[in-house]
């Protein structure tokens, strides 16, 4: 029914180890079917409760390389933008208002502590907080996408407050068509 298109999607049975008595650890790569369930649902566009609904994910285009922006840092278990961090978002907004063809992807990250699943939500909430500030500064919401990595991609692999502080962050990636 579905055509296998690439060798890496082949069903492969690989003996990874036979540490387990009598039984190996088999391994196989599932075939990825065509997309389903995407793009058929209407995205809410009205923000009755003060949130800004996300626009559908589009193509991101080419990365903007002539300028880079500092990461926004967060307090532990918080999605609030510390006042001292706001200027970093204002710099992004200024650039985007000067360069109306650009779009931004805001990545939210957490430190390693706590539930990975809650951190995925918290990281998204951090990215959305940054997005809300960008919108309040005049950047159209459909130019801003968010992505949370939770605690999966620490900048600093160390443990301890110094590492954790660096890892609680929002990152900006800018694109133009």
């Amino acid at each position, binding site marked *: 029914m579905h055509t296998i298109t690439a060798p890496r999607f082949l069903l492969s049975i690989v003996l990874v180890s036979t540490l387990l008595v009598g039984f190996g650890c*088999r391994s*196989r790569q599932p*075939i990825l079917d065509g997309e389903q369930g995407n793009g058929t*649902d209407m995205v809410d566009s009205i923000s009755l409760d003060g*949130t800004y609904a996300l626009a559908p*994910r589009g193509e991101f285009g080419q990365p903007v390389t002539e300028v880079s922006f500092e990461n926004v840092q967060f307090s532990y278990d918080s999605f609030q933008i510390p006042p001292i961090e706001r200027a970093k978002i204002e710099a992004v907004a200024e650039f985007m208002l000067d360069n109306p063809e650009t779009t931004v992807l805001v990545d939210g990250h957490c430190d390693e502590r706590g*539930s990975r699943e809650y951190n995925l939500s918290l990281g998204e909430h951090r990215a*959305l907080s940054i997005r809300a500030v960008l919108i309040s500064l005049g950047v159209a919401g459909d130019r801003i996408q968010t992505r949370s990595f939770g605690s999966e991609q620490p900048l600093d692999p160390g443990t301890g407050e110094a590492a954790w502080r660096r890892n609680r962050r929002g990152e900006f990636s800018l694109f133009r068509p």
Partner: protein
Amino acid sequence: MIRFLIIIICLFACSSGFSADIKIVGEGKTQAVPISTQAFHAGASESASLFLHIVRVNLDRWGWFRVSDAASASYALQGGITISGSQFSVDANVVNVRTGRSVIRQRLRGETSELRMVALNFVDALTEAIHEVPGVASTRIAFVGALHGGKDLFMVGADGEAMMQLTQDAVPCFGPSWHPRQDVLYYTSFVRGFPDIYRLDIERGRRSVVSRESGINAGTSVSPDGNRLALILSRSGNPEVYIRQQPKGELTRVTHTAHFAEASPDWSPDGRNLVFVSDMQGGPHLFVVSADGGKPRRISRSGSQNVSPDWGPDGRIIYSSRRYGRFQLVVYHPQTGEEKQLTTAPVDHENPSWGRDGRHVVYAKRDGRISSLYIMDTQTGTEIRLTTRAGDWYFPAWSLH
């Protein structure tokens, strides 16, 4: 797993063979029933002795029985197994020593390659016959693992055998959730660069996209009837709990917490309520809400953070509660409001998942950066290490079938 066996099962339900002192189901203490296997003829072949070995190990492993000598046994396994080429033939008969009556008898034939599953299914059938609880010996545990840094989905038998790698993406993935009756997992993966929800059909080796809305698509939990998914979406501009009808995809929003984040929904056994994590009252804590919506009710009181709830088959909720700086396992009883802390060791106990017997839980024990999976008997507090391979193993999800 499809079992390619031709199975002839003869069940002799025993009406009067139960010992009077056995208490049934999850919460109380269950006496391990002594059972002897000395009268079972396994012969000298490797497959035959492996069968008996697996039966004995799993009788001892799950707390419902203990293998004893014939003199002190309440039950005796009789019959035997014969091997002929790649074929086996088993006659397994368990007799109540006092009454002489058979409580269960299975006559099975098939390929020797299926003997492990035959042995595990027999132990579960015996557990059901004597304790009226579905055993977990034949069930499986899906989890996330990092073998060489990249993360993928894995699966292992509850007996610790037959570990299998299910994906080869080496990208962050989250929270596998079993379909209640099918060999299907729902989980969140970054395989296409964003946290999207996928459905993985283990038997057919096929994966399809379930939800890839803007923002996060995470926290999937399949309803007990298999027809609905609870999940977390941030499409509204904030992470919220939603219910998605399967397979049509109709979405209902359950929570409305514009300025707070939700995570990790899980269904009550009757499919009417959801427990989930929210920071709407400061820090992540547990709330229960009707699947039809309405006002969420906070259920976790102690602990600075309460995360990763799993609503068990007997109605009790297990979760990780941060106490004195470490995540400990806590069981909450919605009817009485009582909570009981199960662990105290100074390490993190995360992502607990109930077995279908309502007695055992599997969880990730993290010491420093590395997690291993353990199974705990919540009646005795006994822990068994499930993952013995080196690696980082977490997000265990115990199958109900």
